[in-house]
C-alpha cells in the first residue's frame, strides 16, 4: 500500500495529522526507507506549520528547521505534520481543533502535547520514526499512553532552530519510535551543535554507558498500586531515593516559568506577517487584540494571562524570579542524586490514558497536576526516556528513566538491554 494513502486512511479514523505530504520524497542515506512524521510545531519548508493553533493557519515556512535539513540529507522521507495541543499547551492533546484518538481505545486520549506523533508511531505499519517535542513532558506522556518509546534529550543537544517556541529555556526536540535502535539512529542524526540556535550546546555526550546503580524516586511511587507494581517489575535491582523539592515544588516552579516564557513568545502573533489575518481596522492595539482574541484557543489565553501576571511589576519577585531560584535548588537536588545513581526511575504518568469524557470533567489545575512526574526532569533539562512497562486493563503503562545531563546514551543502552 502506498505510504501516503496509509497515512490518509489512519488519519481518517484517528486524527494524527494536521497536514499530510502530497508525496513522500525518498532519498539515500542512513534514513533510506524510513518515513518520518514531524510534530506540527517544527518548520518544514512550504508545508503548512501551525503548532496546532488557528492563529498560524495557512503559515508555510520559507525554510527548514535545522533537524529537517539533517533528516532530508540522510534520505528520510517526510510524510507530514502531526497533531498536538495548541503551542504544546496540554497533557491530553484536547486543546486544539483536531484531537487525536488513542490507538488502543478511541474513546481515550493519546496524551499530549505530541499526541499525533505517539499515536501514529503505534499505528503505522511502515518503517516510521516520529520527531516530537517536549517542554514539560510532551514526549514522555504520549509515548507512555500509546505504548511506544519517547526520548527527550538533554536541553540544547538538539538544535531548536525552526522550532516554534513554547518556552525557550525548556523546549527540547526529541524522538519517538517502536524500536530503540530507531530512536538511537534518529537521535544520532539530529543531535549536534548549531550556530543558528543561540542556546545550542557544544558539548560531547558521555560515551560511558555503564549502568551500575538505579534509584527509584520515592515520591513518585505514590500512585495507583497496579501502575507502581508494573513499573517496579521492570527493574532487577534498585534503591529508593528521595527528591522532596522536585516533588513538592516542581509543578508550580515549572508552570510559572513555562507560562511566563510562553506569554512573551506568543506576543509576536498579531495577524500581520503570517498566519491568520483580518481586515486592517482600528489602531494597532485594537487590531492586534482583535486577532489574538479571535484565534487563540482557551488554554492559550489562560496561559498568556497567568504568564503575563507572574511577570508584572509587583508580582515578578514573588512568582517569576522566585521560581527561577527554586529551579536552581531542584536542579541541584537532581545533580546530587546523580552522584550516586546512573539512572533515576519513576512511572511516566500517574495514570493510564484517560477517556475524553473523564478529561472533560477536570479543572485546569487538575490537568496540570497530571504532569507531576515529568515536569522535574524537564525543568532541570535532564534527558529522559519512556518505555512501555506493561498494560493495565489493556492500556499501556510507561516507565521513565532519567539520566544526568549529556548521558542520553545510557537511556538508549537500558532499552537495548531490555531487548
Amino acid at each position, binding site marked *: 500500500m502506498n505510504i501516503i494513502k496509509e497515512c490518509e486512511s489512519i488519519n481518517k479514523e484517528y486524527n494524527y495529522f494536521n497536514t499530510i505530504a502530497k508525496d513522500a520524497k525518498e532519498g539515500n542515506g542512513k534514513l533510506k526507507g524510513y518515513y518520518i512524521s514531524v510534530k506540527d510545531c517544527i518548520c518544514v519548508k512550504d508545508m503548512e506549520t501551525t503548532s496546532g493553533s488557528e492563529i498560524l493557519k495557512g503559515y508555510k515556512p520559507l525554510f527548514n528547521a535545522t533537524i529537517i535539513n539533517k533528516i532530508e540529507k540522510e534520505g528520510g522521507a517526510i510524510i507530514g505534520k502531526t497533531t498536538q495541543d495548541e503551542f504544546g499547551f496540554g497533557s491530553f492533546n484536547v486543546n486544539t481543533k483536531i484531537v487525536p484518538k488513542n490507538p488502543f481505545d478511541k474513546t481515550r486520549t493519546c496524551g499530549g502535547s505530541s499526541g499525533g506523533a505517539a499515536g501514529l508511531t503505534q499505528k503505522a505499519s511502515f518503517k516510521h520514526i516520529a520527531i516530537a517535542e517536549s517542554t514539560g513532558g510532551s514526549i514522555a506522556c504520549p509515548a507512555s499512553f500509546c505504548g511506544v518509546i519517547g526520548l527527550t534529550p538533554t536541553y540544547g543537544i538538539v538544535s531548536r532552530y525552526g522550532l516554534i517556541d513554547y518556552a525557550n529555556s525548556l523546549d527540547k526536540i526529541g524522538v519517538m519510535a517502536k524500536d530503540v535502535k530507531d530512536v538511537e539512529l534518529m537521535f544520532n542524526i539530529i543531535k549536534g551543535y548549531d550556530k543558528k540556535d543561540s542556546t545550542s550546546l*557544544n558539548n560531547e555526550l558521555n560515551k560511558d554507558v555503564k549502568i551500575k546503580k538505579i534509584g527509584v524516586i520515592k515520591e513518585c511511587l505514590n500512585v495507583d498500586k497496579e501502575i507502581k507494581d508494573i513499573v517496579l517489575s521492570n527493574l532487577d535491582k534498585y534503591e529508593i531515593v528521595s527528591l522532596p523539592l522536585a516533588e513538592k515544588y516542581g509543578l508550580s516552579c515549572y508552570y510559572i516559568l513555562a507560562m511566563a516564557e510562553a506569554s512573551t513568545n506568543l506576543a509576536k502573533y498579531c495577524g500581520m506577517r503570517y498566519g491568520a489575518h483580518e481586515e486592517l481596522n482600528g489602531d494597532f492595539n485594537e487590531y*492586534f487584540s482583535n486577532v489574538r482574541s479571535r484565534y487563540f484557543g482557551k488554554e492559550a489565553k489562560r496561559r498568556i494571562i497567568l504568564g503575563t501576571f507572574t511577570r508584572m511589576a509587583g508580582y515578578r519577585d514573588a512568582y517569576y524570579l522566585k*521560581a527561577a531560584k527554586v529551579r536552581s535548588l531542584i536542579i541541584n537536588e537532581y545533580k546530587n542524586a546523580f552522584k550516586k545513581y546512573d539512572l533515576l526511575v519513576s512511572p511516566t504518568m500517574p495514570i493510564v490514558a484517560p477517556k475524553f469524557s473523564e478529561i472533560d470533567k477536570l479543572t485546569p489545575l487538575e490537568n496540570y497536576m497530571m504532569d507531576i512526574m515529568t515536569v522535574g526532569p524537564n*525543568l532541570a533539562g535532564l534527558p529522559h526516556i519512556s518505555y512501555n512497562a506493561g498494560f493495565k486493563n489493556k492500556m499501556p503503562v510507561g516507565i521513565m528513566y532519567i539520566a544526568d545531563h549529556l548521558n542520553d546514551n545510557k537511556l538508549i543502552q537500558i532499552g537495548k538491554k531490555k531487548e
Partner: protein
Amino acid sequence: MKVDKELIKRVASNARLNLTDQEIGEFMPQLKDILDVFSKIAEVDTKNVKERFHPVEIKNNVREDKVEKSLTQEEALRNTIHKKDGYFKGPKAI
C-alpha cells in the same frame, strides 16, 4: 491570592487580549485555584540562591557581524496578505 475581575482585565489588556464577560467569569476561579498552588513556592528558603534561567550552562553564542544570505523581500512577504510596495502593511499607529 485575590483574583478579581479588575485584575484579570488589567492583565488581559497588557497581553492584548479582549476577554468576554463569560471568559472572565470562567477564568476567575480557575486562576485563583492555580495561583494559590503557585504561591506555595514562597515557603522555599532561597536565601543566597541564584536564579537559573537555563537548565544547563550556556555560553553566549553570537555570530560574526557579517552580512549573510537572507530571505528576499518577495519571500519575506509571501505569508501575508497585508503588503504594499514591498513592505508589510500594518494597522494605524497614530
